[in-house]
């Protein structure tokens, strides 16, 4: 997209998100909030897809973020959003900093499956240590406070949504800067040529490691935001199907850009909601068919579809001007 295109799209999308609570019903706001939370984890998965790596275990960080909120409330009675959000991001990054030490050594199927394996270890821990984690019952996440104030009952959803919107906005900017930086380009270059990276004096492992830590932070933030809106967390947050969903959404929206995962996350939540409503026994099949169509017809995902539509539209507009 051109610079002019971006300068139009970003303010319009921002206004739409800010105005949404006053326009859409409460249940759509819930979907949007959940989509914003998942968008951050999808963004993390998309980073690796850009580098030619696929992770089937990023639900691990999603769960770390969500359980940060759960444990903080259960043990310390902390429910302050401005404390829990950075804490979840920090824990996500810290866990990634430890796991990343050996994950950065692997590529291809080993990277994908090792991520899955580690996430399943966490799943098992969350499931078995009932006294600590609540097991299959999970943990309740209390309504977060904002600067110590408990929002009035009518405004709980609204407050929580705006917290998610601000966090998603900040992290979108962070990832945008990351992708435009030398390290971001090295990540993309990783998919093309590791030999050249090493012969530039750079370490491929360092590129993967740094990205892994960032992706952990994103996962943690996504988890805590989801916990805020759902209000209850369960071990399934770390389950491999959840990880697969993040990969699915990254492909659906397109992982070549920052907006792709956002569009993907929103589209996925709506598709799932409607497919569940109108075809409750075939919603997974509906998702499968959509994925198949995307891969066959538009491998760049929904964002690429949008971009090609805009390009066609502006070409036509130019043609009209010239005529």
């Amino acid at each position: 997209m051109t610079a002019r295109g971006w300068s139009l799209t970003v303010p319009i999308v921002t206004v739409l998100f800010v105005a949404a609570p006053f326009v859409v019903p409460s249940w759509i706001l819930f979907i949007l909030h959940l989509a914003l939370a998942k968008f951050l984890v999808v963004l993390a998965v998309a980073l690796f897809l850009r580098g030619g790596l696929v992770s089937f275990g990023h639900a691990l960080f999603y769960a770390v973020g969500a359980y940060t909120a759960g444990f903080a409330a259960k043990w310390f009675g902390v429910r302050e959003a401005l404390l829990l959000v950075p804490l979840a991001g920090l824990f996500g990054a810290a866990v990634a900093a430890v796991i990343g030490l050996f994950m950065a050594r692997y590529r291809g199927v080993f990277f994908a499956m090792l991520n899955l394996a580690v996430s399943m270890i966490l799943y098992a821990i969350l499931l078995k240590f009932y006294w600590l984690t609540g097991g299959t019952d999970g943990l309740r996440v209390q309504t977060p406070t904002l600067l110590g104030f408990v929002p009035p009952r009518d405004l709980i959803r609204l407050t929580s949504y705006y917290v998610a919107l601000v966090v998603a906005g900040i992290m979108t900017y962070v990832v945008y800067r990351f992708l435009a930086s030398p390290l971001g380009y090295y990540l993309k270059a990783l998919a093309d040529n590791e030999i050249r990276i090493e012969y530039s004096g750079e370490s491929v492992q360092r590129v993967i490691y740094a990205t892994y830590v960032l992706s952990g932070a994103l996962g943690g933030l996504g988890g805590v935001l989801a916990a805020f809106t759902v209000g209850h967390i369960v071990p399934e947050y770390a389950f491999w199907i959840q990880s697969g969903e993040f990969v699915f959404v990254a492909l659906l929206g397109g992982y070549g850009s920052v907006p792709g995962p956002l569009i993907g996350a929103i589209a996925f939540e709506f598709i799932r909601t409607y497919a569940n409503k109108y075809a409750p026994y075939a919603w997974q099949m509906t998702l499968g068919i959509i994925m198949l169509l995307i891969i066959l017809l538009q491998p760049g995902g929904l964002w690429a579809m949008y971009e090609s539509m805009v390009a066609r539209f502006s070409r036509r507009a130019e043609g009209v001007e010239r005529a």
Partner: protein
Amino acid sequence: MPEPNPILQTIDLTKSFGMVKAAAAINVHIARGELVGIVGANGSGKTTFLNLITGYLKPDRGRILIMGQESTGLPPRRVTKLGLARSFQIPQLYIGLSVLENVLLALAAQAGKSTACWRPLYRGQWLEHGTVVLERFGLQAYARRPVAELPEGGRKLLDIALSFALQPQLLLMDEPTSGVSIEDKFQVMDTLVNVLQQSAVTTIFVEHDMDVVQRYSQSVLVFNDGQVIADGPPASVLAYPEVRKAVLGQE
């Protein structure tokens, strides 16, 4: 009499692949500022020598000194940091990025900012420098185009430009004209030698084409069966009957 402070020195460098001795106790001294050609028949150990020097392969025995510093057994990225860069027989490029972005990444690495994750890659000084590098290699017309659109000769030049952008003390080029058409060969070499002479970087290049070696190199190393069988100025070395036999198969 060997140069007292060679930029590259190998001592009894040895590497075997099973029964095949690809490097058999190689001893070389390369002086600063030289343009050295390496010749030899297929399988004579030329590329193995390059791979050993640049850390891609680890020697079974022997030592490598780059500007007097031990580099034996170091991985490529550490060898690169000692001031050595290399290009490849098959260009090693970031095919998904533009030509300029390829160079910008090399400049970021050279500046030690490759893990910078906040300031953009497209920044003033690198853009200026990158444009200069591309101009020197005659690639400025392709700057914003994807690497995939470059012709083979252009890819070869870009591969070398990426090594050159690292501002090495010693540049190793593996067959810089392979895959380039006969008509373009001398043009590619003229461009390269022109750039190299301006920067005074010591260069070693592996080459099959005797005409290219004769015309451009200041001295030649002749490889045969993993050994250096002759070295010296190209005019005399390439005239030795044993060299012609080993390299060209001529009696």
